[in-house]
């Protein structure tokens, strides 16, 4: 199980996260939803230890990788057991999509034979010899997901990976993530799309959500709690998102 507990984070003096805790088990999905600026991406960056939390602990399968009190870190096992696809993607611009996708996996001696299958599943198999600036944002998003998937992580964090995808591509992404859930990969997914969130929670075992607002978790629970919110804030958010969808 991946756990990030009691995470606090401030930029300058402004608190962005306040005592936020999330967890995910292998084979299940935790979906983070909330308005822009609520701290979802910051939570992903701190929970994945890209940025150090100010306070809190991060542990993976019972092993503590970060404790703000003790500053204990052994990150060589942490990544890529857990890996992240960030909102801005950051494919390396001097490498083709194929090299971007294969390089980290090759360096970690992971098999790269499935690149064609993964890229076909994501609909980018024709683009592998192109450079990142020669494809669209949506195609870059899918390439970044392919790079992460090729690392065969046990836990995968995804930040707004469907923001530039059309409905068909989102369906393909869902199918790929469903297959990862079946392979016992734990997913933490930030999304603004209620349908995508709902599908992910349903497809894994014990799927759950956390609704963040102003740096705090306002409501969390399983798919039933998501469909029947207890707080007015989540109800309003769902209504607004539903109206747009």
């Amino acid at each position, binding site marked *: 199980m991946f756990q990030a507990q009691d995470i606090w984070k401030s930029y300058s003096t402004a608190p962005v996260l306040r005592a936020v805790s999330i967890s995910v088990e292998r084979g299940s999905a935790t979906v983070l939803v909330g308005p822009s600026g609520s701290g979802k991406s910051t939570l992903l960056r701190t929970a*994945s230890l*890209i940025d150090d939390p100010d306070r809190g602990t991060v542990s993976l399968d019972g092993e503590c990788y970060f404790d703000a009190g003790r500053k204990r870190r052994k*990150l*060589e096992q942490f*990544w*890529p057991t857990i*890996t*992240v696809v*960030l909102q*801005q993607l*950051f*494919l*390396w*611009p*001097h490498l083709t999509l194929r090299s971007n996708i294969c*390089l*980290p996996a090759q*360096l*970690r001696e992971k098999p790269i034979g499935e690149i064609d299958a993964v890229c076909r599943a994501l609909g980018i198999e024709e683009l592998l010899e192109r*450079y*990142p*600036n020669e494809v669209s*944002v949506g195609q*870059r998003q899918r390439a970044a997901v392919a*790079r*992460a998937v090729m*690392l065969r992580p046990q836990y995968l964090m995804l930040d707004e990976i469907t923001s530039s995808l059309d409905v068909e591509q989102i369906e393909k992404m869902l199918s790929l993530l469903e297959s990862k859930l079946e392979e016992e990969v734990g997913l933490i997914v930030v999304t603004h799309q209620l349908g995508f969130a709902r599908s992910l929670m349903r497809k894994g075992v014990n799927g759950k959500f956390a609704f963040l607002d102003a740096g705090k978790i306002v409501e969390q629970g399983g798919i039933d709690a998501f469909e029947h919110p207890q707080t007015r804030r989540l109800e309003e958010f769902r209504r607004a998102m539903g109206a747009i969808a």
Partner: protein
Amino acid sequence: MLYWANYPLQVMLGVVIDPFITAVSLLSIINTVLIAEVWRGALNDFPREYVVAGRVSGMTRFEIIRFVQFPLLFRSVLPILLATQVAMLQLTLFTSLISVEELFRVAQRINASIQQPIEIYTALAVFFLVVTLPIYILALMLRYRYTRDMSER
């Protein structure tokens, strides 16, 4: 600076150093500082998130430097480094100020004996063009080859 290093400084220190060694040492220091500044600027401007992408993919620091940072930085600094070396080559002209036997000083000496400045200094200019032009062309070729537009659309 050359003059200062060759005369007052050596008098102050009570040493006599061959002007050629003084010139080579000083130009080497200047060149080192210029190259370091080029690399420092490139490193400062390097997008941190490219490194983050490598870290979360399990790459070691060395692997990130080898496969991500160095290739990208090399592309951006190579043309500037070559241009810097051309400038350094031109700077060697000033070593004649401290009696180093470089091309300009030799040209001056020949001119003093045969009094044909147009021919001699034109020949000197042509010589410099022959030496520096290929380096400039190489810099342009490398810029064209390695600085492919990588900006995202």
